[in-house]
């Protein structure tokens, strides 16, 4: 059963978290293509979903950050992050979700996933794709976590993502 989350807002007035992210299906395809190309079924990979600052529900772009990865983890190039934040500021955009792969069927957040995200403010999403994103282009089998005031909470996909 899919029950809609309560709406809420947080932080500065210029930033609000939507109760449901509207994500184009083409963006999911782009996400999988990036993961497959980069990870080659052998390494973890990460992308960021971004959208306009003024449209809390909107996700309309995939950003593939430069990163180093192994079969068990990834690290985004630290020097890239500041420039990315500067570009977000210039373009009045924001990151809504961090998406990364795991090697097998286990999509539980690791301790590292919990402690070292790009963003940890309420409403931010972390999505874990199983099998290095080599299987069907779908969030079936994936896990979606939402950062809330007391930490990461696993959510049902249909509660927090609406395909467009």
């Amino acid at each position, binding site marked *: 059963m899919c029950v809609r989350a309560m709406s809420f807002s*947080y*932080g*500065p007035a*210029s*930033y609000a978290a939507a109760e449901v992210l509207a994500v184009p299906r083409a963006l999911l395809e782009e996400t999988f293509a990036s993961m497959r190309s980069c990870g080659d079924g052998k390494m*973890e990979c*990460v992308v960021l979903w971004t959208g306009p*600052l003024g449209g809390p529900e909107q996700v309309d772009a995939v950003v593939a*950050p430069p990163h180093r990865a192994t079969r*068990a*983890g*990834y*690290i*985004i190039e*630290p*020097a890239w*992050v*500041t*420039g990315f*934040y*500067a570009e*977000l*500021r210039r*373009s*009045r*955009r*924001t*990151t809504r979700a*961090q998406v*990364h792969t795991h090697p097998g069927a286990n999509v539980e957040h*690791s301790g*590292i*996933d919990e*402690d*070292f*995200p*790009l*963003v*940890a*403010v*309420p409403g931010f999403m972390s999505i874990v794709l199983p099998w290095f994103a080599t299987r069907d282009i779908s969030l079936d089998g994936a896990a979606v976590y939402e950062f809330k*005031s007391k*930490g990461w909470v696993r959510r049902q996909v249909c509660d927090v993502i609406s395909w467009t």
Partner: protein
Amino acid sequence: MAVPAETARLHDEIIVSSNGVDHEIKYEPHEAASALLEAALNAFHIHDARHTYALWTESGVELPITGSAQEAGVRPGDVLFLRPSVVRGG
């Protein structure tokens, strides 16, 4: 000579930007740089793993948290970026 109010206001503020969102932060040049970081974290309601965050200059240099804001190179009107020092998963 009196400094115009608007100029005076600008003289003790910086802009801190994080994930595309801006906040104006008032500061005193002689206060600890660590206090500036704390103020930024509070402004963005970041409560978890605060020790993993730092302020970065537009040129990509991490601001030291020792010494004063002025000693760390902070100047009124600067834009600083609040971000985690490391972003990783596994």
